[in-house]
Structure formats: structure tokens, C-alpha cells
């Protein structure tokens, strides 16, 4: 009969994770899942990608009144090589689109994208020739935060949503760090295959 052992689960102050019982043979891998997820979820270093007015609220989220460092995201990085999550704050113009994609590609895996505000998520009021109608046409977006601009609390709620998503991940293979959905793959291959960026 397989022995049942309580899985080791780390806790953080905001979202408690309830331990589950697993078969003894799985204990190392499942606890590694939980451990890696906890570590990654609680030290999301954002990439400063302020493109318009939403960036002001993003800065305000980082300041002491709302204090994003309570969630381990205070280290705003100016280089994609050190960042985990790209917060697209503001409308993405078509001239900015190739740069945005390039910077996304330069970020090391695992990486996530938060699309902050109406403009970055869908184009917002700017339904015109100059603005990309949603950042998900260029990069796969994990969390959309509506608002114009989203208040710091709304952005923090978005970050918490992302943390929830990260904590739910399961690794099929040990080294496969970001299991991509079929949707992500189709978005990306559409971009590279048809050279969609060239038309911007």
C-alpha cells in the first residue's frame, strides 16, 4: 500500500496554500512544484514598460502608499534580462510594437505579461490607425487589468491574479519551465510565420 505523506507547502502572508496529500513517490516533485511556484510567484520582478498615462499609476503602485514590495515586486528592472513580468502600462502604438516584441523576446523564461489599462488590453478609446488594438496581438498576455487608468489597488489585484495563476502551475517535465498553451503557440507562430510585425 502506498504511504501517504503530507506535501510540504510553503506559506506566504497573502494567499495561503492548503497542503494536499500525495503518494510518497511523488513527494519530491510535487513539493518542488509548490516550492518553485511559491518562489516565482513571490518575487516577480517587473519590467518598466510605461508607455502612457497608465505608467503614472504603475509608479504610484511602487511608491510607499501602495507598496508593491509587499508582494515581492518592488525591483523594477530597466533591462529585460533581469525581469520576470512585463507590465505593459499604456497604449501600444504600432511603431512601438516591434520594440515591445523584441524586449519580450529578450526576457528569460519563465516570463509573464500583465496588460494594464484599457488601451494596452484592447485599444480602449483609441480605435484608430495608430494604436495596436490590444497587446495580445504582439505578445501572449497572462492577466488583463481594465481601467483607465487602473488604480494601484486594481493593478495589485492583477498581480495577485497572476500569482494565483503561477501557483497553480504543474510541471509535466522537470525542466519545462513554462508550459505554453496551444493558444500562446498559435499567437507566436502566427507572428513569426507571417511576419506580421513587418507590416507595422
Amino acid at each position, binding site marked *: 500500500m502506498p504511504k501517504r505523506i503530507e506535501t510540504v507547502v510553503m506559506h506566504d502572508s497573502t494567499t495561503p496554500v492548503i497542503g494536499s496529500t500525495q503518494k510518497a513517490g511523488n513527494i519530491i516533485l510535487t513539493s518542488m512544484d509548490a516550492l518553485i511556484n511559491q518562489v516565482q510567484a513571490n518575487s516577480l520582478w517587473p519590467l518598466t514598460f510605461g508607455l502612457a498615462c497608465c505608467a503614472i499609476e504603475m509608479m504610484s503602485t511602487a511608491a510607499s502608499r*501602495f507598496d508593491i514590495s509587499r508582494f515581492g515586486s518592488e525591483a523594477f528592472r530597466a533591462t529585460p534580462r533581469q525581469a520576470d513580468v512585463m507590465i505593459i502600462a499604456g497604449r501600444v502604438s504600432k511603431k512601438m510594437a516591434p520594440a515591445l516584441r523584441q524586449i519580450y523576446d529578450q526576457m528569460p523564461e519563465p516570463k509573464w505579461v500583465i496588460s494594464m489599462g484599457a488601451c494596452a488590453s*484592447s485599444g480602449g478609446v483609441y480605435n484608430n490607425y495608430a494604436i495596436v488594438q490590444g497587446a495580445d496581438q504582439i505578445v501572449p498576455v497572462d492577466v*488583463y487589468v481594465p*481601467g*483607465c487608468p487602473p488604480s494601484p489597488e486594481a493593478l495589485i*489585484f492583477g498581480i495577485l491574479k497572476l500569482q494565483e495563476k503561477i501557483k497553480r502551475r504543474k510541471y509535466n517535465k522537470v525542466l519545462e519551465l513554462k508550459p505554453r498553451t496551444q493558444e500562446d503557440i498559435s499567437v507566436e507562430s502566427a507572428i513569426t510565420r507571417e511576419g506580421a510585425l513587418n507590416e507595422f
Partner: protein
Amino acid sequence: MSFDLISGVVKPLITGFGITAKRLARKKVTVQYPEKRREQYDRTRWRHALVRHDDGLEKCIGCSLCAGACPAKCIYVEAEDNTDENRFSPGERYAVRYEINMIRCIFCGLCQEACPTGAIVLKKDFELANYKREQFIYTKKMLLESKRPE
């Protein structure tokens, strides 16, 4: 060159930690968001709600004025006639479909201003972030307030 321990190390340390110590006694400014919420300002505008009259009928009469006023063009209204057996609103017509694309909405409140019956109201619920774009089409069912218990 001699190194002065007092003025070079101890004094700056005391000055620095002195500022920290003074700050400790001040009121804390950080809003502890997920646990505690700050009081929102009076004019804060977030998620919409379709409200009802006191007798339980919907205020919305399906006139589409809100959709016309919306700068983001994110409201979709489809109206239908009320009948005596099937009455949703006191007016002639009611909205069968009422949809707002929350991801395009800029929460400007112009729909609220344009509405002749005060049916659409922007409330203060800001926790709207989600994972998929389709999840942001808020249907009439999601927007309409539930009937008050008799």
C-alpha cells in the same frame, strides 16, 4: 591620512538611524490592500450596475442613449417591446441584451450621465482583472442588480 572613527562612522550611523527612528513613530501611510481597503473617493467610478425601481422593475428602457454617448463604443443594447404579460420595465420597451466590454471601457461615466432613467450606475468595485479577453464581456445578467427581497 588618519581615519576618524567618531565623525566618519559613528556620527553618520546615528544620524541615519535617527531618521529611521523618527519615522517609526509616524502614522503608517501604506494601504494594506488585500486585507484592508481604503475608503474610495466619492466620484470614483468602476464596475457598472443596472439598477431597478423600488417595485422590482428594471429602470433601463433600452433607448441606447448610453451606447451613443460612450466614447469607447463599448456598449451594445438590443431593445424589445414590453407586453402586459411580460413586463420588464415601466416604459414601452426594455433591453433584451445589454452588454459592456469592460476591457475597452474607460470608466468615464458618460453612460451614466446620458441615461434618461438613471438605469446604469458606476459603482466602486474595482477588482475586475482576469485572464481572458472574452471574460470581459459583461452581459445583462452580470450587470443587473438582483431583486430586493420583499
